[in-house]
């Protein structure tokens, strides 16, 4: 006799799957978004698809802890993100490297080989900190609310808001170089991150409010 978990409130069909079939159908439908989020985290296709597949397996194994009626997409993204950071921590332990250097170099680390194929925006995204990048992708591309993004990233809503705002400013600086409005110039790659930090300091004094990047319509 199979007793269904109290978390799983699906209608009993009398068939063998107790709603697992539904769960699987929903997983299938969300695979494209898992791949897209994974791609933005890893910066390369192969690593991203491995990550998305690991996520599917983890999600399937943990399906009893998913509360039906809550946001499955956000639940899956949380698993994917946890998996990404735990895989990477493991990789660091196995092959220590200079993280600071990797973060200064666009396309540094594992996605170096692929950077030639990436658009300017994709490359600029690699320069952002992990925290800024994931916040910007979730809110700016994935369509998540600040609240859902905060739950996925395990931080406060205000923290997500400020990360997104900083990420947007930083991306613009990276893409547009010294002259924010030129829209065409591209900084020399190695100098990009240092240059952004310097520009952020100059352009975004703590009081803010003047650049428009943070201003939100009511």
């Amino acid at each position, binding site marked *: 006799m199979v007793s269904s978990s109290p978390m799983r409130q699906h209608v009993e069909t009398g068939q063998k799957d107790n709603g697992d079939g539904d769960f699987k159908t929903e997983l299938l439908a969300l695979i494209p*978004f898992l791949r897209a989020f994974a791609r933005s985290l890893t910066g390369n296709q192969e690593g991203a698809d491995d990550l998305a597949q690991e996520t599917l397996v983890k999600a*399937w194994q943990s399906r009893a802890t998913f509360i039906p009626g809550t946001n499955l997409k956000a639940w899956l993204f949380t698993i994917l993100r946890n998996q990404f950071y735990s895989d990477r921590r493991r990789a660091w332990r196995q092959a220590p490297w200079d993280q600071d250097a990797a973060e200064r170099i666009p396309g540094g680390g594992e996605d170096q080989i692929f950077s030639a194929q990436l658009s300017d925006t994709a490359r600029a*995204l690699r320069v952002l900190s992990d925290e800024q990048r994931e916040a910007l992708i979730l809110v700016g591309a994935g369509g998540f609310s600040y609240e859902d993004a905060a739950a996925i990233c395990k931080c406060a809503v205000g923290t997500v808001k400020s990360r997104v705002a900083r990420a947007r400013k930083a991306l613009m600086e990276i893409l547009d170089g010294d002259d924010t409005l030129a829209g065409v110039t591209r900084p020399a790659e190695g100098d990009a991150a240092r240059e952004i930090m310097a520009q952020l300091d100059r352009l975004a004094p703590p009081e803010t409010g003047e650049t428009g990047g943070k201003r939100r319509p009511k």
Partner: protein
Amino acid sequence: MQWDNTVSNDEKPNEKARAIRARQRAIGRELRRMYDDVAQEPVPDDFLDLLRRIDDAEDARTGKKVS
């Protein structure tokens, strides 16, 4: 870059703020495009195979338990 605070302090910042917002919107569109491009790719067979394997494992497991 510094504003020239000795001359008209009103118009330039507004213009600049507008231009920045327009640029931010363009970057936002590009981010969504990148994300949507991946999301619109057909799901690779590996993924479908993986879900099928999960199925098989599940059949084996529940088959054992139910009988």
